């Protein structure tokens, strides 16, 4: 998935993403250029400094992995509902 909102993955989208990831039982990680972070941690998501146009990959492991990946991809593709 690609970060499409103009200001990238700043605090508000990171907070939304972490909040959503926390609702699933599965462990969700976000990957960018060889860096893996927990999707549940705002602080870790911010260390990605994912600007507009950045490619991210989601991986989820657990009982609701598919749902988690779908929901997170939807959030990212909706530009976090912020624009």
């Amino acid at each position: 998935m690609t970060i499409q909102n103009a200001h990238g993955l700043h605090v508000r989208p990171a907070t939304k993403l972490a909040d959503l990831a926390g609702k699933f039982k599965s462990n969700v990680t976000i990957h960018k250029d060889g860096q893996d972070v927990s999707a549940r941690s705002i602080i870790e998501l911010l260390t990605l400094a994912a600007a507009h146009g950045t490619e991210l990959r989601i991986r989820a492991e657990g009982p609701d992995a598919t749902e988690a990946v779908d929901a997170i991809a939807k959030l990212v593709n909706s530009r976090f509902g912020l624009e």
Partner: protein
Amino acid sequence: MKLTELVIRETIIEDIQSPDKKGALRELAEAIRAARKPAGYKTPDVLEALLKREKMGTTGMGGGVALPHAKVEGLPGLFGAFGRSKPGVDFGAVDGEKVHLMFMLVSPPAEANAHLAALKRLSAGIRIPNMTKFLKAAKNAREIWDLLREMDESVGA
């Protein structure tokens, strides 16, 4: 941009006096004005922008840390301030805990990537084991500044 360039000694407040969020943000916004005197910077306008941002969702991200920030039109660059409150400030943080460490960042609207880079440095620094504990325990602004320098060194360029 290094944390020690964003936050200088004079924009570190070792003991925030206000018990509430608005007052704490005002102290930090005023510290930037007094120390950096950015062209066109007006503390009440910056405070209003910071509060507006808090209304969209708290910047208290848990673990006693908050990253209050705002985009300010016409600002000549990015500026930061650091505030510490021993009794803690109610930020409505995501974990419901009081905030003891506040990293404030104000940036011009066009600098989205510089803003992200600054957030990256801050968040990577905060993640260093025991860093928040050391920041809480630091004796004075000088020691806090030394810790910010350590965060810069650990995070790299």
